């Protein structure tokens, strides 16, 4: 018997998708599409937040609704909503395609919500695929991007290959345990994780999630895809998609119960590699979106620190990190969208004079960049503190030191962006950035959120902590 109430947010999202589907059939009317998207996503966000307290199992146990999943759904929905907020100026996308754009965005969100609740390998796989396919296509929504479909295809190949590898891993895991249900696996995996087949299957099955989170070595699509996608899609990939990936990755790693050193070493390796590779490569970037892509890779590495610690603090940290990443990355993309003229890609120095053109945005950018660099008192610092504390509880002092050294490297390019925004004199009289009142409020909300998350994260961490209750043995 299915308790449909628990499934309300997903159904709502599906219905919202239906609305856009019907819009697709008619002629494109961007204004209507945007208004509908704003209203639907806002209402959906409210609905999702309202269902945060729901708990229960639906669909014969393959779909688990609990605090963990519901909060993640709310986060994913926030990502969706925020992305839609950026769509007021969707000039990167062909006008006739807006309703398709929103439809795919909506379906991707739906898929991620399903992902957050899935506790069966099959549903995990399919929801992962849905969200990815939407994004492959969304990346190619950019109007007249000179590289054409190539980045989307690269994204697709990486996604398909990683999901194939993951699927093979699932097959091995299923072959070893005879069940594909997380709840049943949870009792059996920790004891057998060191068997070669189980270990191989488990590690291979992680690759799909690595791809989703853009962790080394499955991050190689990220820079091209971010660069090629419309800004809003990049923002969406950097926020909602990452949160969903964290949700499922935490669930997967929780399967091992933190009992396996081998798995931990795999995660340590990818964590160190992805933060190092991401930060190093980001240093050499001029294009802001590419830079943000690499920084996402690096941040995925920090998230992995929390996840690999596999303790309450670590999961809390990873969840909180997801939240903070969403806020900070969104803020950066907000600035990019506003500073970019007509959906063009912009270089770092295009931000020159931002402090005069849009002081609020400049301040938001400042906080977001410091947050990404993990400097207090911003939300990014709290997130880092949590994951580092978790790693330290596992005795991984050296890992934390490496991570902090990476932070120093990352600061180099964040400061470069900041310098452009605050110091570099614009070469010519730049276009003034019109920031509407709602947008200003949004920016202020982000500022407040980033500072509050750094100075007084008490309730947020408590919530994240409460979410981890079901993950620990």
């Amino acid at each position, binding site marked *: 018997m299915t308790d449909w109430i628990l499934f309300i947010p997903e159904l709502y999202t599906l219905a919202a998708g239906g609305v856009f589907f019907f819009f697709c059939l008619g002629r494109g009317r961007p204004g209507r599409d945007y208004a509908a998207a704003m209203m639907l996503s806002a209402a959906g966000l409210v609905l999702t937040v309202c269902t945060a307290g729901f708990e229960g199992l639906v669909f014969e146990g393959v779909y688990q609704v609990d605090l963990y999943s519901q909060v993640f759904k709310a986060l994913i929905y926030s990502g969706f909503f925020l992305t839609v907020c950026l769509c007021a100026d969707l000039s990167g996308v062909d006008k006739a395609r807006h309703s398709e754009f929103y439809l795919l965005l909506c379906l991707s969100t739906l898929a991620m919500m399903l992902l957050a609740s899935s506790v069966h390998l099959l549903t995990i796989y399919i929801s992962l695929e849905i969200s990815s396919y939407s994004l492959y296509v969304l990346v190619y929504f950019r109007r007249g991007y000179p590289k054409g479909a190539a980045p989307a295809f690269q994204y697709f190949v990486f996604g398909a290959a990683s999901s194939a590898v993951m699927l093979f891993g699932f097959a091995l895991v299923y072959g070893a345990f005879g069940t594909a249900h997380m709840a049943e696996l949870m009792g059996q995996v920790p004891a057998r994780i060191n068997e070669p087949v189980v270990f191989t299957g488990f590690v291979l099955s992680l690759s799909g999630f690595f791809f989703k989170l853009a962790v080394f070595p499955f991050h190689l699509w990220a820079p091209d895809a971010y660069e090629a996608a419309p800004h809003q899609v990049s923002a969406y990939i950097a926020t909602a998609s990452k949160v969903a990936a964290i949700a499922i990755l935490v669930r997967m790693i929780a399967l091992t119960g933190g009992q396996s050193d081998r798995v931990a070493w795999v995660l340590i390796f990818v964590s160190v590699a992805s933060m190092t590779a991401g930060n190093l490569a980001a240093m050499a970037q001029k294009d802001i979106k590419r830079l943000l892509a690499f920084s996402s890779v690096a941040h995925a590495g920090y998230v992995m620190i929390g996840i690999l610690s596999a303790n309450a603090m670590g999961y809390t940290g990873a969840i909180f990190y997801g939240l903070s990443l969403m806020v900070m990355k969104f803020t950066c993309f907000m600035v990019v969208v506003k500073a970019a003229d007509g959906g063009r890609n912009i270089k770092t120095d295009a931000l020159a004079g931002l*402090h005069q053109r849009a002081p609020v945005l400049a301040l938001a950018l400042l906080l977001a960049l*410091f947050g990404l*660099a993990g*400097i*207090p*008192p911003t939300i990014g*610092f709290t997130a*880092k*503190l*949590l994951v*580092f*504390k978790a790693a*330290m*509880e596992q005795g991984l*002092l050296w890992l*934390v*030191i490496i991570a*902090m*050294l990476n*932070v*120093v490297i990352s*600061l*180099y390019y964040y*400061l470069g962006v*900041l*310098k452009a925004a*605050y*110091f570099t004199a614009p070469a010519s009289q730049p276009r003034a950035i019109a920031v509407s009142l709602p947008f200003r409020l949004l920016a202020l909300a982000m500022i407040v959120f980033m500072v509050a998350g*750094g*100075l*007084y*994260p*008490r309730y947020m*961490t*408590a919530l994240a*902590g409460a979410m981890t209750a079901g993950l620990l043995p």
Partner: protein
Amino acid sequence: MQMHAAHFPFLSTILLICVSGLALVLVLPKNSNAAVKWVSAACSAATLALSVFLFAAYDRAAGGMQFVERLDWIPSMGISYLNGIDGFAAPMLLLTGIVFFTGVVSMWELDFRVKEFFALFILLVIGVYGMFMALDLFFIFVWFDVSLLPMYLLIVIWGSSAREYGAMKLTLYLLFGSALILPGIIYLAAVSGLETFSLPALVENASFSGFEQKTAFLLFYIGFGILAGVWPFHSWSPTGHVAAPTAVSMLHAGVLMKIGAFGILRVGMFLCPEGWMYWSPMMAVLAVIGIVYGVMVGLRQTDLKFVIGYSSVSHMGIVGLGFATMTVDGINGAVFQMFAHGVMTALFFSAVGHIYDRTHTREIGELGGLSAVMPAASSYFVIAALAGIGVPCLASFWAELLVFIAAFRVYPALAMISVGVLVVNALFMLRVVRNTCFGPLNPRWAHLKDMSFAMGMPRAVLAAAIVGFGLMPFLMYDLIQTASVPLIHALGPAVGLAGPESVETLFTELMSVWP
């Protein structure tokens, strides 16, 4: 650690005044430069008054942590908003108050992006104040970084020569330091198993193993030491000073470098006495290298700020040497030196800033004879130089005296070396003074005017602090004493003092750095 709760949250009031000043500056309209300056000045004057009050009101007989305020912050991680000052923190608060006030007034003539400057400046000071009064490791780190955060913009926007390079170098260097501090803090909090970040609680209840203490202390020493200008991690400091605008240099050399030393003291020494003991020979050797090296490099510099920057390295070496002695005298001297050097170097940079504002050069070779046209500015410069030389009855003399005495008890050879360098130090300071203020006047500067009374006021305050505490060092030592004696007593049996034969063991000392 005794804790005396506060009846009124004076410490938070200081922060609150700064925060409201910051808020007020931010909401003021864009072009109201004068209002911004007055707000900042009022804010700084109020905090200075409170700092003086706290300095005076600290109960020296009772000792311990006073004016303690506590508020649960993130209970799930054991983080609390815990403030308090002891004999180490009170002088630092006073120092911050003085330098904040004088810094604001020194920038009175600024007319470029005024609002942003003072907003960032106040933010910087909030971090500094917070750092000196925080007793929770989380907040110590938060304030520490808050005090570094605005630095980059302050230098890059309002700085002078090579500002981009200097700002980037400084920020990355200092953040590199904090990249070691944060792991250290979390490490201790994690291995204590106490689920708390409260420093007093950790000092009281945690028992860290020797290895943990050594590891953590090394992290703190390097991390905070970078900010304190410990050789060989000092090279950000001269470059940064050169690039920074006057008030930032003042605050930076005057207070921020002290934050580093204070961090070593507050976090490193309080929490990891064994680590402190283990690494103290290394600290001593590095400190003495810094003392000698700073002077020697400074001798060849031609830019006034470089000169002062390197002399800061040398002077901060004295602080490090004091810490390394692990004796009451050494700690007393070191903390007093932190104060004295703060005031002295603030005066120095203030005077240099004034000269630079007028002449737009800091090349020693181009200056000369400025006493003739700017007697007041030159006088302050000379006072600062004399304080830097360690002339008796100026504050830093007493500090150096005690440090050298303490160091001689423990590391006679190193102490003798650092005493010997005083000659070169004097040579180098006097050379600068002679080439800048004295000698025939360069005709290019004949038209320059001396500082006005208003501009002279902050310098007078600094000079008064130097002379006042120089004549009455007991005001400071009585206070520092209340913190250093318990700290040393907590170490247990006294540290082995060196006998006359130990002069011959210089070699052994040098070798013992490598564990």
